[in-house]
């Protein structure tokens, strides 16, 4: 048993924190929010030069061959920085999907480009009648001579405006779900911006008779379902890691503030009510970190992980918001100001808590795993 990072992961973590502190300060998070560009290009290139895009891509496709466990180290650091860039969408969701595809041509075409930071891809999954899970997908993919003809509406598509590809899930006639890498510049695709709390530049995406060539098919039939179930696990735990990073930063900021801020002639951190709030936050952060670690380890080791993944996502989604709100409470009025960073973390964890299944959705999955 080792409940800490291993040596390589500690090095990765140190490098990531150093890079993000200098290249992704909160001023950049705000300027990215206010800028018309989908995300800061310079930051993206810098991340690619760090090798992060290729972390879990295998060496045969110009990647570093790291584990999912390694990836969560990066995601935690990114959560701590409220990273305003489509790393999760590209290097976690899309790279994982393509890596597990049996389409060798697709891998050879796209993985090296992702690894080099030359390709941005994002997930188009959610629909008006489907918030979480894979049931009730209404978008259609009709097979034709060259591939599929896709129609439908996708919601909450992050960074769609900056994406080269849309990793899209649609329903076929009779062969279940299909997963496609759709060229974002294909005729028939239109976007409507749908701003959300966390500044992640989301869009509604409309597919109107979009032709997708067969060399962009990631998976079909049973393979597609299996791939998506795995992807849901990876994404849920990945979001937990982001939340753990954000929670830790909130805790650190709050403890420091409680030591510095004086009222009634003493640091407010000397008051038991504040101490107990901070102690609760610390136990929440530790609990969230270990549950996330357990789920990440099971996924990394290819062990059955459904229960642990849903335990982590249901718990972390709940306590991350609790911690962020308590951070606001201890800071008082300053935390209600745009110029102060606390709200960036509240926004971050609120969004991550809903992504890939909220607390209640995953609690129900845990109940199923308990045999209920």
């Amino acid at each position, binding site marked *: 048993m080792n*409940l800490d990072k291993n040596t390589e992961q500690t090095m990765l973590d140190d490098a990531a924190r150093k890079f993000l502190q200098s290249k992704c300060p909160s001023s950049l998070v705000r300027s990215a929010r206010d800028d018309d560009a989908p995300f800061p290009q310079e930051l993206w290139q810098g991340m690619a030069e760090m090798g992060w895009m290729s972390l879990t891509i295998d060496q045969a496709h110009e990647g570093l061959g790291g584990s999912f466990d390694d990836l969560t180290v990066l995601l935690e650091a990114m959560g701590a920085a409220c990273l305003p860039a489509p790393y999760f969408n590209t290097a976690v969701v899309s790279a994982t999907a393509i890596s597990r595809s049996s389409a060798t041509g697709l891998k050879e075409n796209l993985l090296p480009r992702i690894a080099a930071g030359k390709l941005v891809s994002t997930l188009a999954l959610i629909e008006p009648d489907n918030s979480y899970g894979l049931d009730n997908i209404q978008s259609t993919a009709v097979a034709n001579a060259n591939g599929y003809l896709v129609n439908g509406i996708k919601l909450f598509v992050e960074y769609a405006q900056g994406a080269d590809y849309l990793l899209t899930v649609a329903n076929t006639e009779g062969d279940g779900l299909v997963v496609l890498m759709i060229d974002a510049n294909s005729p028939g695709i239109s976007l409507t911006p749908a701003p959300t709390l966390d500044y992640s530049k989301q869009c509604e995406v409309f597919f109107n008779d979009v032709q997708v060539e067969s060399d962009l098919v990631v998976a079909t039939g049973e393979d597609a379902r299996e791939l998506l179930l795995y992807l849901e696990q990876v994404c849920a735990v990945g979001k937990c890691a982001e939340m753990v990073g954000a929670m830790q930063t909130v805790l650190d900021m709050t403890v420091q503030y409680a030591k510095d801020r004086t009222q009634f002639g003493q640091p407010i951190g000397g008051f038991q009510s504040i101490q107990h709030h901070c102690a609760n936050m610390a136990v929440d952060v530790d609990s969230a970190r270990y549950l996330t670690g357990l789920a990440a380890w099971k996924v990394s080791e290819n062990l059955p992980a459904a229960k642990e993944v849903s335990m982590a996502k249901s718990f972390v989604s709940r306590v991350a918001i609790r911690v962020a709100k308590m951070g606001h409470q201890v800071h008082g009025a300053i935390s209600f100001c745009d110029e102060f960073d606390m709200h960036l973390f509240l926004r971050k964890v609120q969004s991550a808590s809903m992504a890939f299944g909220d607390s209640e959705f995953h609690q129900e999955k845990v109940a199923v795993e308990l045999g209920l």
Partner: protein
Amino acid sequence: MDFSFNDNEQSFHDELNDFLDKELPADWYTKPVRWPHDYAGSPYRDPKDEETGEVFRKKLADKGWLTISWPKEYGGRGYTNMEQAIFDERMSYYLAPASGGISCGIVGPMLLRIGTPEQQEHWIPRIASGEIGFWLGYSEPNAGSDLGSVSTFAREEGDHFVFNGQKCWSSGAHHADYSWMIVRTDADARKHAGCSLFIVDNKTPGITMRPVINILGNHSFNEVFMDDARVPKENLIGEKNKGFYHLMQALDFERISLVGIGTFKRFLEELVEYVKTSTRNGRPLKDIPSVRHKLADLATRVEIGYMLFYRTAEMLDRGQEPNVESSALKVMATELARDMAEIAMEILGPYGQLTEPGERAPLRALVSRGFLESISATIGAGTSEIQRNVIAQRGLGLPRV
């Protein structure tokens, strides 16, 4: 992170399972009157089970398993703290009568750390063999959470200390042979700097006890009075007037060794099984969303408890003091014990109130007891408020005002 046991740990885990399957009846877990993180010391309902338990406990002592993480030269097995944790988990999951109790869990490890070679030679073998039992002489009528203000005074006189004062909430003192006691030895020093630790024989002339019945109707507590009780100087443990600081370490052991993490898993499984097989107003309990979600939440928190538990073992094996971490474990586990009882009570509805086993009392009527038992969990061995102070002040560095 890596959550797997290494080869030694895994084979020890398997060995424990085999041993438990062989030495205890398959339905043993239904015998003890227990609840996760209980203190109340309820007797077995059937005296025959008491005998079975004693035989089992003797076998553990013979194998050296009550003291597995102690060095071999002191009657232990020299196992790691992680193996000790695995032992505690398996034994508590089976509800086996395996606790080395205060003697093996607190006094022994403390003597190995701060006792003189003569003290170790004198006490350790008798503790390891299970021959003698201890009670904790900490609380007094005016020293509960503020333990540094104990006022029982030990006056030096020749080769003895003469004790005068009173201890309270002295759990199991009437079954034990000795006390592990903190008293004041310097009346002038700042309050925390004037305390010392002693081993005190219950048979010392001048010591009297009054039983105190707890809310479950059991005689577990006592008041203990000391009236010119003479304790030999060689029973002073650790440095004179450093007792409070030694005690802080002893409290870590208490918070870890009393958790009984496996009992949480056992009762969760029993509650899940009950929900799977029961109906309410003609509707399967398992189909009620609020019930499903409460159980999912309990299961998640049990999993967290396991990790906070193993973390303390990992730290001890690295030579670190799991001071803040044992407080986090204690506050988390005891509040879970309380919530588990409350949720079980809600799920069982009116049947949860029944106090005696029978056809209509699910889970052997343990829920009503757990409901009361768990009141002590968040109070004894440092209240939840004290644990949070420890986490905030020693863990996060917030000021002590």
